[in-house]
């Protein structure tokens, strides 16, 4: 797996936005890779920059107001160097995206059948021109072949009663069915890379679970790489091979899934994992004080330091470098250098510090 070049390789990606409050430095030097056939998750809390990262990867950010820097290499070609038309031809064909809200990714005035068949017929062709579109749209052989493919795929995503769903409008479907339609649409052109932004998280737990197990089956059946975005660490654990934890526009830590949950290295990952309520009733740590940084004026040094239970002056002034833990794991924290032998800090210690942390008064400045 690691011999060949990775399918997706993002290097030193930075995204900023020019706003009324000044320049917001939202993604800062993100490096990430997705190997062939690998399921990778970017996990993080609201405002950590995880969605913006994927939008930069898919080229969905308008520049300006966005300012994007760095390289996004997909299967050997730098997407940021490609002309617009070629790049657009990749989206929907070799790269597909599932967005979080299924209702807003479906056009309300067309039936599911119309929309999906269009994708099957024209996905990955870039701009066909209106005449080209009309000619093929009304060529019955072309159209009905595409329609067959859509039906097969709806079957595959376990859509109840696919025939009648084809003639339904999005508003007539339930949330779970819409999500299935979106997944089918994304898979129509057998993408090499599927980017899934919080798939199904707007749904109820029981339906969400079905969508996740559907994704699990699809991953097993198809040879495709997935880059998933989620705030739910449970979802990350269930589906992915490797996890990136993002905080404040930077990658705090990455490791294979089992490793990151058993032995998290970064204090933020540790705090996050300790804050999750457990089914076993194991007590939660007291949570992490403060909130995500203001991107127009991010904290100096380590962006997590205002909330970190280990922070001292060295965190304030120096940006932490990545420290490797084995082949695939790395974590960015200056404290790692302190340990002779075992990794520092430890999950237990972080938990203790977070729990002991008396409900101190939140400072008005710098903690938002």
């Amino acid at each position, binding site marked *: 797996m690691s011999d060949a070049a990775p399918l997706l390789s993002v290097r030193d990606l930075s995204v900023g936005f020019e706003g009324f409050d000044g320049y917001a430095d939202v993604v800062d030097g993100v490096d990430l890779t997705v190997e062939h056939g690998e399921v990778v998750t970017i996990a993080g*809390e*609201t405002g950590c920059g995880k969605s913006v990262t994927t939008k930069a990867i898919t080229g969905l950010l308008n520049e300006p107001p966005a300012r994007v820097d760095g390289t996004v290499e997909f299967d050997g070609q730098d997407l940021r160097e490609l002309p617009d038309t070629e790049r657009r031809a990749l989206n929907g064909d070799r790269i597909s995206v599932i967005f979080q809200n299924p209702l807003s990714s479906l056009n309300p005035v067309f039936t599911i059948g119309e929309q999906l068949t269009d994708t099957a017929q024209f996905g990955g062709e870039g701009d066909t021109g209106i005449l080209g579109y009309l000619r093929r749209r009304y060529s019955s052989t072309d159209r009905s072949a595409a329609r067959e493919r859509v039906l097969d795929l709806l079957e595959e995503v376990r859509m*109840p009663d696919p025939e009648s769903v084809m003639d339904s409008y999005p508003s007539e479907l*339930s*949330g*779970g069915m819409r999500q299935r339609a979106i997944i089918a649409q994304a898979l129509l052109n057998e993408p090499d890379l599927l980017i899934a932004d919080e798939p199904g998280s707007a749904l*109820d*737990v*029981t*339906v*969400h*679970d*079905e969508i*996740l*197990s559907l994704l699990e089956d699809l991953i097993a059946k198809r040879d495709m790489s997935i880059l998933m975005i989620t*705030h*739910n*660490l*449970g*979802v990350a*654990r*269930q589906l992915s091979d490797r996890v990136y934890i993002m905080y404040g526009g930077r990658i705090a830590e990455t490791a294979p899934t089992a490793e990151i*949950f058993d032995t998290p290295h970064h204090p933020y990952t540790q*705090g*996050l*994992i*300790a*804050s*999750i*309520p*457990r*089914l*076993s*009733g*194991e*007590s*939660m*740590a*007291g*949570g*992490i*004080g403060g*909130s*995500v940084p203001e991107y127009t004026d991010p904290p100096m040094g380590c962006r997590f330091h205002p909330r970190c239970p280990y922070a001292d002056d060295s965190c304030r002034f120096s940006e932490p470098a990545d420290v490797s833990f084995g082949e695939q794991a790395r974590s960015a924290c200056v404290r790692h250098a302190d340990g002779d032998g075992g990794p520092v800090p430890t999950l237990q210690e972080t938990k203790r510090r977070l729990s002991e942390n008396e*409900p*101190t*008064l*939140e*400072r*008005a400045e710098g903690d*938002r």
Partner: protein
Amino acid sequence: MSGPVLEVEDLKKHFPAEGLFSSDPPAKAVDGVSFSIDEGETLGLIGESGSGKSTVAKTIIDIHETTDGLIRFNGQDITNPIRQQLAEMRSEIQLVFQDPTSCLNPRRTIRKSLLVPLKATGVPRSEREQRVRQMLERVGLNDEYLYKYPHELSGGQKQRVNIARALAVEPSLLLLDEPTSALDVSVQAKIISLLEDIQTEFDLTYLFITHDLSLVRNFADETAVMYLGEIQEQGPTDRIFENPRHPYTRSLLSSIPVTSQQEEAYKPDSESLDGEVPGARNMPSGCRLHPRCPHATEDCAMRHPEQYDVQDRDVRCIAYEDGAEGFERLRGRRPVGSESDGS
């Protein structure tokens, strides 16, 4: 602990169909819910969207008029209260909503928002400023926040303000309607520990409404699981999580993505439900879960199950009609009695 603070008996809230000539049946959002909460205890009310869990809270505090049933607060009947009673009741019972932003007036400073309940309950003017500062400090916000506007605060901070505002009138019962579901986990843990602290400090009783089972596991003494307007299973939290009985509870538990191997043991073998929650206007016949239930029999479609008293809790499933063995038979297993088969 002394007697129940809140008693709800056979509570019903039906919303009539809209339109003058509409022949649609009423939406039975809450249909025969009973529970009681003892002083200082927390009852966790779990349900998916559309289960009627929020309607229960809103009916208790008379945002919705009660269709039928009885609500007693400290022994006193507060069902559909008259004006005088309402004012009294609302200084004793407070509600904290899910969305911290829409609960705060964007044009009022935090101080002004916090002064409103004090004025309404007739706290003398001289004491008000002092009280506002105290409450704010109690929820972990300092004086600098007094003159800030809601948009200057993060979600967690806004929810702290909402909690402070609820506490300002010195209530004895808090209805918490998904107070942390709009927040991130690291912030959620902070708010939960704040809620735990003030519960002991002010001797508060909580009705905690949520869709998050793991949260209830950590926070509630008793748990009630709602589906389509009815409580399906109710009992001590530990017992329900160690040995869930109702098929709905079991599938809810089995569908949570967890973060450790240890927790996997608490998930029953996959018993996923078919389809999605039907609307409250086209309620299935018989057992409300039967079209989705993996164990449903013909009987389930015909008969509406009662709440059966199974050892340590109430379960609304006909498989438990004659005790705990029934369900195991249904699943084609040997009865294991009260032993936990999930762990």
